[in-house]
C-alpha cells in the first residue's frame, strides 16, 4: 500500500505539471536552424544571443502564427568553417543537415565564413529556406548576389554590417584620429580569407583616395602565430596605424608582439575577433591596451545606442555570466525578434510570405532602426541609431572596452599608447 502510494504521488505531480504548461508549448515548435562555428566567438556569441532571444520570446508565450502561439526552438550544428583547413563542404553539409534532418523552418546565424555563406546561398534557394545571416560574413558579394538573382536568392537576408559599410565607418573614424592626433600613414594586416582580403583591399584604395599613405599590406594565412616581421615592416615604413582584418584567435598574439616590440602605430582592428572579447585583456596580460576594434554592431560593447541596448547587454550578461563578446551577439539576438515579427505579420511560416514581411521590417532594435534594403536584403546602416543600424568601434582603455565611435553613442575619446606620444 505504501509502495503504491509512493508511485501515485509522482504520477499525480507529472499529470499536474503537463496540464499546467501553457498551451503554447503544446504546439509544434518553430525550428530555427543555426549553422555556426561554435568553437569561435562569432559562433558561440551568436548562439548565446539567439538562445537568449528565444527564451525571452517563449517566456512571453511564443510566436503568434495566425492566432496560434508556437514556441521557438534552436537547433545548432557546428560548421567548423572558421577553423583553418576545414573545407567549405563541411558547412554546406551542416546547413543541409539542419534543413533535412532537424527540419529547420528558418536558418539564422551562419555559415560564418564568407566563402561558406556564399556557397550556402544556393542550398537555401533550393530548399526555399529564409535565412538571416547574423555573424562573421562581411563580404559585399553576399547582398550583391541577392540583387543580381533576386527571384532565386530572395530568401537570404543579412542583419549585420558588411565590409563596405565597415570601411566607411573606419574611414570616418580615421578622419577623427587624423584631426585629433595628426596621424596619416596606415599599414594593412590581413588574414587570408575572402572578407578580410576584400576589406583590406577596399580600405587601402579608399584610404589612399582620402589622402592617407598606405605604407604596406601583409597577408597572413589562418593560424599564423608570428607577426614580428610584418610589425617590423610597419615600423620601418613609419606607419602610424595598423589596420587589422583578422578573425582568428591568434590575432591576440599580434597585439602582444606589437606591445613587446613597442611598435609606434595604433592597432585598429576592422575585424579583430580576439580584441572584441572581454577576455582579451587577460589573454594579452593588458598588453592589448589602446587596441581599437570594430564590433560591427552596437550592443556588442556597452553603450546607450537605444533604450534596448543596455537592456540586452544586461540580460545577456545575466544569462551567460559574461558580457556580449563581439560580432554576432546583438545581431543574432535581434534576428530572432525580426523573424518573430515577420512571421506574425505574415501570419504564416510560408517562406515566400515571410520574405515579403521581412522586407517590410521597420523596428527599433538593440543597435538602432532595423530595416532591410528590399533589393539586396542587407540591413540599412547609419551613423545615428534613429536612422538605421549603427556600428560600434571600441578601444581598450585600462582594462575596459570603451566605445569611441560613432560619436552619437561614444562613451570616451581615442587614446594613443605612451610610446606614440610626442
Amino acid at each position, binding site marked *: 500500500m505504501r509502495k503504491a502510494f509512493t508511485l501515485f504521488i509522482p504520477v499525480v505531480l507529472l499529470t499536474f505539471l503537463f496540464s499546467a504548461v501553457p498551451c503554447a508549448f503544446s504546439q509544434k515548435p518553430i525550428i530555427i536552424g543555426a549553422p555556426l562555428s561554435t568553437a569561435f566567438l562569432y559562433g558561440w556569441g551568436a548562439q548565446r544571443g539567439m538562445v537568449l532571444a528565444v527564451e525571452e520570446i517563449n517566456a512571453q508565450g511564443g510566436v503568434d502564427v495566425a492566432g496560434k502561439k508556437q514556441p521557438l526552438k534552436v537547433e545548432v550544428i557546428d560548421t567548423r568553417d572558421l577553423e583553418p583547413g576545414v573545407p567549405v563542404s563541411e558547412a554546406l553539409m551542416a546547413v543541409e543537415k539542419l534543413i533535412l534532418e532537424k527540419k529547420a523552418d528558418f536558418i539564422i546565424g551562419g555559415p560564418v565564413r564568407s566563402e561558406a555563406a556564399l556557397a550556402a546561398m544556393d542550398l537555401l534557394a533550393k530548399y526555399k529556406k529564409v535565412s538571416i545571416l547574423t555573424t562573421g560574413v562581411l563580404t559585399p558579394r553576399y547582398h550583391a548576389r541577392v540583387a543580381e538573382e533576386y527571384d532565386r536568392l530572395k530568401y537570404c537576408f543579412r542583419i549585420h554590417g558588411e565590409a563596405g559599410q565597415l570601411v566607411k565607418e573606419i574611414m570616418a573614424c580615421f578622419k577623427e584620429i587624423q584631426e585629433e592626433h595628426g596621424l596619416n600613414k596606415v599599414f594593412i594586416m590581413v588574414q587570408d580569407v575572402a572578407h578580410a582580403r576584400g576589406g583590406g583591399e577596399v580600405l587601402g584604395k579608399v584610404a589612399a583616395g582620402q589622402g592617407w599613405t598606405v605604407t604596406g599590406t601583409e597577408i597572413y594565412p589562418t*593560424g599564423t602565430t608570428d607577426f614580428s*616581421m610584418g610589425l617590423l615592416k610597419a615600423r620601418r615604413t613609419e606607419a602610424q596605424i595598423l589596420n587589422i582584418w583578422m578573425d582568428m584567435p591568434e590575432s591576440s598574439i599580434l597585439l602582444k608582439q606589437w606591445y613587446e616590440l613597442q611598435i609606434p602605430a595604433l592597432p585598429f582592428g576592422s575585424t579583430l575577433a580576439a580584441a572584441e572579447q572581454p577576455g582579451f585583456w587577460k589573454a*594579452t596580460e593588458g598588453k592589448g591596451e589602446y587596441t581599437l576594434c570594430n564590433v560591427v554592431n552596437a550592443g556588442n560593447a556597452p553603450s546607450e545606442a537605444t533604450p534596448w541596448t543596455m537592456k540586452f547587454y544586461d540580460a545577456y550578461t545575466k544569462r551567460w555570466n559574461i558580457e556580449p563578446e563581439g560580432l554576432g551577439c546583438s545581431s543574432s539576438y535581434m534576428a530572432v525578434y525580426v523573424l518573430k515579427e515577420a512571421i506574425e505579420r505574415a501570419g504564416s511560416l510560408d517562406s515566400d510570405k515571410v520574405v515579403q514581411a521581412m522586407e517590410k521590417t521597420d523596428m527599433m532594435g538593440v543597435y538602432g532602426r532595423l530595416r532591410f534594403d528590399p533589393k539586396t536584403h542587407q540591413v540599412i546602416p547609419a551613423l545615428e541609431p534613429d536612422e538605421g543600424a549603427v556600428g560600434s568601434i571600441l578601444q581598450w582603455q585600462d582594462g575596459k572596452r570603451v566605445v569611441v565611435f560613432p560619436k552619437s553613442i561614444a562613451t570616451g575619446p581615442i587614446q594613443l599608447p605612451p610610446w606614440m606620444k610626442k
Partner: protein
Amino acid sequence: MEILIYGTVNSMALALMALGFALVYGISRVPNFAHGAIYVVSGFLTWTFLRVVGLNYFLSAVLAILVTGLIGALLYQFVLIRVRGMAISEIIASYAIGLAILEGLRWGGFRGMTYSLPVFVEDMVIIAGVPIDFHRLLLIAIGVAVIAVLWAFTHFTRLGLALRGMAQDERAALMLGIDSDRMALIATALGSMLAGLAAIVLLPLGNIVVEAGYNVLIMAIAVCIVGGLGSWMGAVLAAFLIGFAQILTVVYLGSHYQIVVALLAIIFTLILRPSGLFGRQKELEERV
C-alpha cells in the same frame, strides 16, 4: 640585420620544435606523430600549474616538462612498443593518440585565446636599429644551450652513449647488452620533454591554442625531412635553412608565403634527396 636577428630567432624556434621529434626517431625509429599534441599539453600544464595551482613560473615549467616526459614514456610503454617496427601502425597509432589529445583538449573547453603564459623577461632592446624583446634573445640562448647539452649528453654520459649506440645500429647495441626497448622508452620520454621545453619557451610569444599542435607537428616533420630523418644535427641545420628561408620570404615576397616554404622544402627534399641532408636511412637504396 633584421633578417639576421629574426632569422636566427625563427631558426632556433624551429630547431626547438623539431629536436624532440628528431631524437625519438633517431633512436627508436618511431615517428612520434603525437609530438605536436605533447607540445600543446605542456603549454596547458604550465598554465594550470601557474594560474590554477598558483606555483611560481620556474616550478610550473619544470613540473610541466617532467609530466610531459612521463606522458611520452607512457605513450611508448603502452602504445608504441606494441607497434614498433611496423611503420604504418606506428604512424597511425601515434597520430591517433595526438589527435585524441588535441581534440580532447578542445572538447574539454581549452579553446579560444584566453590561455597565455607570461614572457620570461618583460623588456626590449634595439640592436643595430632593430627592436627585439628579451624573450626572443632568451629563446636563442636557450636553444643554443639545449643543443650543447644534448651534444654533451650523447657524447659524455653512459646513457647518452647507449642511446647513440642504439641510434647507430640497434642489433649491435643489443649484442653489447643495451636494452633497446628501455632506450626507446627513454628516448620517447626525452623527446617529449624537449617538446615540453619548446612549448614553454615559445608559447609566451603567443597563446596556447590547440591548433598549435598541428602546426608544430608539420614544422617538426619538415625540419626532420630536410635535415634527414634520424639526424638531430641535420635537424638543427635544416631548422636554420628553413628558418632563414621563411624570413627572407616574408621580407621579399610577403608573410602569405611563409608556410609554403616549409612545404616546398619537404617536396624538393623528397624529390632530390629523399634521405635529407644528413639522413642515413635509405641512403644506400638511393645510391642503388
